[in-house]
């Protein structure tokens, strides 16, 4: 089987290596950089900046741990950038080596699907190559969204791509959009010294249905403790840049359910405005001509087998848009499902136990439904909460903020959702992911011995709180 994959991000390369391992003839087309958004403009660079920010925060707390002799630490932007580039290069080289090892043919250029059997690749010089094959997987991903009235100039009005370049630490930073990227950037730039204001149109931070309200409440409080200003139910308008300073008005948002208090727009000023309000499809590839249907926003529509409206052409990852889950690990799993399908052992893609990891301060890890979603779905719900500061390990580490919350079916004890905030939440959520994928119950987690002293015990404590609630 000859498979052409367009897009070398986590969806594309995962599918490529899996297909090659199954004996397929694989061509991987990438227009910019292997690793896609995740490696070059997303997951990885954000987490390396996060690590530098954590080092700075710890540097300021050393005396708390009895470490003396270190004067006030500061950020060397060039060094932070170099480290980020270094990490990206290590991982990109690893991907290139993996392509060679798996005998995946890597083509640099812009891929355009004609049909399942034909893909045309145009390289930088304009020369075109036609790839013949049996199936195509489109994994071209998404790009930053530019909001009307907030045109990127990449100097004062910036996208997340610009923010990751870390050209400067603005004294005053406004972040429009309090979703995952906005909140992560707020915490990073705040740690590096910016005075940050987050403007979010809905009534809470991380306003996605799967995010539990208690997580939004905790993050709001923890960000405000760090002097990050948070304006909820507001949008930024009338933005103009004069002499490198952005001016705008934060007024009531049309997305807010209940505008509270004063309605007069607040005049804001900043040295940089970061716009993180969503993503758009990277789909400029003649989809209509190939008979590949998209929705009205341009995201590719697929059936339950991830096949587009053109037979033999599949699509995975961010290009499917927000009706699916736009995360790297989802793209990767969708890629594996498509490859299994093409190679004769169909595997359905499931979205009910997708973990998300949010690298704010503190971290957040979630999987499954929020309490509100579980109740809305009609289940008889029981919840259990344990605070991070109830754990011996949290005190020993000096990382108190956070909690563990389990949402379960009160009749069967089956887990419906888990929400963790606090140190290492992004790693701790994996246990919950396994529990949900295998249909584990509260009793299963209760009878699993968790090592002491660890943060993982917090999940068991929350489970036990839920079990006690079930008895009452």
């Amino acid at each position, binding site marked *: 089987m000859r498979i052409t994959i367009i897009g070398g991000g986590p969806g594309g390369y995962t599918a490529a290596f899996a297909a090659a391992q199954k004996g397929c003839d694989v061509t991987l087309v990438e227009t910019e950089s292997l690793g896609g958004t995740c490696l070059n403009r997303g997951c990885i660079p954000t987490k390396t900046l996060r690590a530098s920010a954590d080092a700075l925060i710890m540097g300021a707390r050393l005396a708390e741990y009895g470490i003396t002799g270190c004067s006030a630490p500061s950020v060397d932007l060039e060094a932070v950038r170099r480290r980020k580039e270094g990490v990206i290069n290590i991982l990109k080289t690893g991907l290139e080596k993996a392509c060679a090892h798996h005998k995946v043919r890597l083509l640099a250029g812009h891929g355009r699907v004609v049909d399942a059997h034909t893909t045309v690749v145009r390289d930088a010089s304009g020369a075109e190559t036609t790839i013949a094959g049996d199936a195509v997987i489109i994994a071209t991903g998404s790009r930053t969204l530019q909001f009307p009235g907030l045109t990127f100039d990449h100097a004062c009005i910036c996208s997340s791509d610009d923010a990751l370049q870390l050209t400067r630490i603005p004294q005053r930073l406004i972040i429009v959009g309090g979703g995952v990227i906005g909140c992560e950037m707020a915490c990073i730039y705040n740690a590096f010294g910016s005075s940050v204001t987050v403007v979010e149109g809905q009534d809470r931070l991380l306003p996605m249905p799967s995010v539990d309200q208690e997580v939004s409440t905790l993050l709001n409080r923890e960000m405000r*403790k760090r002097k990050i200003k948070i304006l909820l139910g507001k949008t930024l308008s009338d933005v103009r840049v004069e002499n490198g300073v952005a001016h705008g008005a934060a007024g009531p948002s049309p997305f807010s359910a209940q505008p*509270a*208090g004063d309605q007069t727009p607040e005049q804001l000023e900043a040295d940089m405005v970061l716009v993180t309000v969503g993503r758009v499809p990277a789909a400029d590839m003649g989809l209509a001509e190939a008979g590949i249907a998209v929705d009205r926003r341009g995201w590719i529509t697929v059936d339950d087998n991830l096949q587009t409206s053109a037979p033999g052409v599949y699509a995975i990852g961010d290009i499917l848009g927000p009706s699916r889950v736009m995360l790297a690990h989802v793209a990767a799993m969708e890629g594996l499902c498509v490859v299994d399908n093409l190679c004769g052992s169909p595997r359905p893609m499931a979205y009910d136990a997708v973990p998300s990891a949010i690298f704010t301060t503190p971290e957040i890890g979630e999987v499954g439904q929020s309490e509100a979603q579980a109740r809305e779905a009609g289940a008889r719900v029981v919840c259990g909460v344990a*605070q991070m500061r109830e754990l011996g390990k949290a005190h020993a580490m000096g990382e108190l903020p956070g*909690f563990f919350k389990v949402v379960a079916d009160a009749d069967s004890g089956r887990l419906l959702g888990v929400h963790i905030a606090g140190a290492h939440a992004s790693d701790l959520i994996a246990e919950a992911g396994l529990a949900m994928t295998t249909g584990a119950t509260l009793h299963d987690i209760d009878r699993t011995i968790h090592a002491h002293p660890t943060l993982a015990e917090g999940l068991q404590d929350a489970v036990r709180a839920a079990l006690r609630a079930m008895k009452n």
Partner: protein
Amino acid sequence: MTSPDQLTLPEELRYTPEHIWVKKDGDTCLVGITDYAQDQLGEVAFVDMPAIGAHFAAGDEFGSVESVKSVSALFMPVSGTIVEANAALEDAPTLINASCYADGWLARIKADSAADVDALADAAAYGKQL
């Protein structure tokens, strides 16, 4: 940990089961947490107060108090609007431990109905609950 009979419960205040005290002061009320609550919490590290002008129904969570031991929600004693928050608590949250009924007050609220305040438990009733 202080035993219940050693805690202070000013007679002129009203109380909720969630350990909030209310004191009528003209046409507004002051609210705070009781001696029992501050004793249970231990040294207060941070107080999370709502925005001025925010309205809450009785029983709604309007903020939180954080100590090394726990983060505890603050529940609105009666339906009303936040008129003022104790700014001194930002730099000196331990005022709550030192003087929970006076300098450690949390917020000033305008109750939707004065009768709601009168209907709250008195010191004796709250003391029995502890």
